[in-house]
Structure formats: structure tokens, C-alpha cells
């Protein structure tokens, strides 16, 4: 009886630990980072358009671009800290990092333009290009993440089999 309780407790702890660490595969981390970067680049593009149309205040636009830059840096850090085990994941990571970098450069250019260095209009095409790239990569990463999730779900079934043994 006690042994059953112990094994149930162990399974619960393992499940909780898995939930806490997110049992995140490389692909799903990259997927999140890409989504975060895409949101930031799209935000920057939207606010640059608004500034060009004179629909927002320069102060607000600057603050928004600052927030977008912070998000892009965070996404890059998350992507570069991802541990990969498969070569396909490594390729994906490189591509994501490159696209995030391009987005970051475009956002920085936009911030410089707000400060009076260079033309704001010129940053719009590069923001849009970075957004397109990130969109493609997000689709790739999301497919990869789903495949990875399907295989870890199979592995996750093992501890409950252990509980069956404990009961017997």
C-alpha cells in the first residue's frame, strides 16, 4: 500500500518537474523566440508607419521602438542559449539568429532615424523583410516543435508504467 503511494508521489513529482522545466524541446524554444521577435519587428514596423503618417508622437514612437529592441534582444538571447541535439535544429537556430539580428539592426536604424540620423522611411523595407523571414521561420519551427512534442509524449508515458509495476 505504502509502495503504491510512494510511486504515485514520484510520478506526480516527475510530472510537476516536467511541467516546470517546460520539457521544452529545442524546436519549441526556437518557435517561442521567433514569435517574440516577429511581434517586436511588426510592432516597430507599425509604429514607424504611424510616425511617417504623423499619427503618433515622436516620444511614443521612440519608447515603442525601445521596447521592441528589448524584446528582440531577449529573443536573441533565448535562441542563442538553446541547446540543440540534431543538426536540423542547429540549422534552424542559425537561421533564426540571423533573422533576429537583421530585425534588431532595422529597429536600431529606426531609433537612430528618430534621433535625426538617417531616413526613417528607409528602415521600413528592411523591417518588412525581417518580418517576412521570421514568419517563414516560425512556420518551420512550429512544425519541428510539433514533431518533437509527439516523440517526447511517448517517452513521458514510461513513469506511469513504473507505477503499474509498483502496484503489482
Amino acid at each position, binding site marked *: 500500500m505504502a509502495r503504491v503511494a510512494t510511486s504515485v508521489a514520484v510520478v506526480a513529482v516527475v510530472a510537476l518537474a516536467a511541467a516546470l522545466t517546460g520539457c521544452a524541446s529545442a524546436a519549441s524554444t526556437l518557435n517561442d523566440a521567433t514569435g517574440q521577435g516577429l*511581434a517586436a519587428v511588426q*510592432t516597430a514596423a507599425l509604429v514607424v508607419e504611424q510616425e511617417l503618417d*504623423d499619427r*503618433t508622437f*515622436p516620444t511614443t514612437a521612440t*519608447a*515603442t521602438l*525601445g521596447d521592441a529592441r528589448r524584446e528582440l534582444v531577449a529573443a536573441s538571447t533565448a535562441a542563442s542559449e538553446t541547446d540543440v541535439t540534431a543538426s536540423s535544429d542547429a540549422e534552424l537556430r542559425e537561421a533564426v539568429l540571423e533573422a533576429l539580428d537583421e530585425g534588431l539592426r532595422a529597429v536600431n536604424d529606426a531609433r537612430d532615424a528618430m534621433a535625426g540620423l538617417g531616413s526613417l522611411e528607409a528602415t521600413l523595407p528592411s523591417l518588412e523583410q525581417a518580418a517576412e523571414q521570421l514568419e517563414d521561420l516560425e512556420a518551420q519551427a512550429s512544425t519541428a516543435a510539433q514533431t518533437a512534442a509527439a516523440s517526447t509524449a511517448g517517452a513521458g508515458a514510461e513513469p506511469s508504467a513504473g507505477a503499474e509495476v509498483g502496484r503489482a
Partner: protein
Amino acid sequence: MKKLFAVALGILTAIGGFVDIGDLVTNAVVGSRFGLGLAWVVLVGVVGICVYAQMSGRVAAVSGRATFEIIRERLGPRAGLANLAASFLINLLTVTAEIGGVALALQLATSVDPMWWIPVAAFGVWIVIWRARFDLLENVTGLLGLTLIVFAVALFMLSPDWGSLADQALRPGPPADEPVATYWFYAIALFGAAMTPYEVFFFSSGAIEEKWTEKDLAKSRLNVLVGFPLGGLLSIAIAGCAAVVLLPASIDVTSLSQVVLPVAEAGGKVALSFAIVGILAATFGAALETTLSSGYTLAQYFGWSWGKFRRPARAARFHLAMIVCILVAVAILATGVDPILVTEYSVVFSAVALPLTYLPILIIANDREYMGDKVNGRGMNLVGTIYLVIILVAATAAIPLLIVTGAGA
């Protein structure tokens, strides 16, 4: 104008509950991820807070007792202390977030780094609490907060596809690309925000600050019926704006600057300036509401002298407690933590505070020794009991969902 000032308490209370800095962002997050798929939660929450705010306002007007006095009296010192600890932490985290929120709103207006604004905002909150009369405080912040209606106007100006918005709202449920747990996490976060306990602490204590009596019951009802539905409407409008502009551009909201993007898109600089003024007033008002609430709850639990209608020296511990709260909030913000993130964790403490707050209100509202013949009617009791059950379910589900979803990430 006089009529408008009469409902200022209800408006300020609701703004603090529905569109404070955490909720501004949460509403936009929800809109940018689920469209209007969670609008039903706001409706459920509005009805719930109306029922219980009205009850606590009636108890305060008839018996002269504020909510935390009756919590201590009905629950005793132990359960009362558990509620005090949870409610106080919610208040403290929210004060922290709001002071940070005022700084973020000032950044939108000036592009000066928010770190510089934090001491200014904190001092502003303190000096208003120290020196301003209660009615001045509620009239100014309540009235200026009304400019947030610009979000509803912006939604119309964006001329969205009303059919698909209605479809999102009428067919609730998680979209295909979002996990079910995340959907329910946000549902509970929105419900908890609508029913957050500091609203009734502030509303009932405010009723006593304004010296309401049995004659003011109609006023209390009007405050509730104008304030909270308005708060809910603003909350849905913000989600709607995000659903129309940000959702199609796959922008997941993470910061305050993204919340105002749809407003600028719809109405340009004029609308944007209304939105910034509204956000400033709402976050400042919420900072006042939560700072005062932390003073009210402590003072009422321990039986200290409290109230802004007294000189600070005649309510010394009450004022000292609020000063300490503001200083702690500034210290937390000085670590550079994201103020918006801070509010997400207050959901955990709501799990303890919500049931332990609303149960005693329901019991006292039925007690003839307190209420005379103004006790609850049958309908009120039925609705109150149903909401108590909903609160219990939401409270017990909150913590597991927070862990499983990693706070909705």
C-alpha cells in the same frame, strides 16, 4: 457635472480594478491572442463585482462598518490574518506595478527612461494621500480616467468586421494554436482582476470616508451600476482594439507601448493623447486605490484609527503603513523588475483572498443586528451564493494553472 462627481467613487474603484496597468496589458494580451474569445469572462466578472460591491457598500452605509472590520469579526483572528496577508501582498504588488505603470505612461509622453520617473510617481502618490481631500482625489482621477473611453471610440473608428468580432465573442473557447490551459489561465486572471478584493476594501472604506448613511443607498447602487459596467466596457474595448489591429499582425502584446498602437492607428495624435492621459490617470488612480487599501485593511484588522477625513497625526499608524508600502514598492522597482510581470503573480494570492473576503460580506449582509431591515433579499442571496461557488472554483484552479502554463507564457 454634480451627478458625475456623485459616482466618482464607483468609477475610480472600477478603473483601479479593470484597467490598472496589469489589466491594461492583460486585456491587450488577451485580445491579441484570443480576440474577443474571453469577453464572456469580463461579463461574468462585472456582474459578480456589482453584486458584492453593492453588498459591501450597503453594509458600510447602514452599519458604518468597513469590509475588513467585518472580515475580522466573522472569521476571527486566524482566518482573518490569512486573508490580511494575502490581500496585503496583492495590494503591495499592485502598488509596485502601478507606480511603475505611471512611470511607463510618462515614458510614452516624454520618452524619458521610466527609472527616472519612478521616484516622481511615488512621491506624487504619497503627497496626494498625505494632503488631498478624499473627494478631490476621487473626482480628479475618476474624471480623467474617463478619457480611456477613447479605446471604445477607436474600436468604432477602426471599422472592424463586426460579424467576426461577434463570432469570436459568441463562440468562446481556445483558438486552435493556443493550449486549453493557457485559455483558462487567462480566463481566471480576467475574472480575478474583475473581482479583485481591494475594490470592495476601497469602495466600502470610501463610503465611510464620504460619510454615507442609509439615505445614500441609492447613491451606492448608482455608483456600482455606473462604475463597474464602465470598467468592463473599457476592458472589452481594449481587447477589441488589440484583436482588430494586433492579432492579424501576429503581435503578441508584452508592453504598454503596444497597447496604445491601435488607438494611434485609429485616431492619430488626438486619440493617442487621450489614451495617454487616461492611462496616466488610471494607473495613478489605481496606485492611490491600492495604497489606501493596504492602509485600510491593516488598520481595520487591528482596530487602528484610519481615514483620510482625519488629520494624519490622528491616524498615525494608518499613514505610517502606507508610507512603508510606497517605500517598499520603490525598492522593488529599483531592482529593475518589469512592473507588469509583478501583477501576474498576485493571481496566486487571490486564491486565498477572494473566498475569505466575499464570504463574510455575504454573511453580514444578512445579519439584522448590523443591517436592520436592509438585509439581503432572496435574489441577492441566490446570486451571491452562486458567485461564492464560482469564486471557490476559480480560486482553487488558479495556482495549478499558473504553474502548468508558466503564468500564461
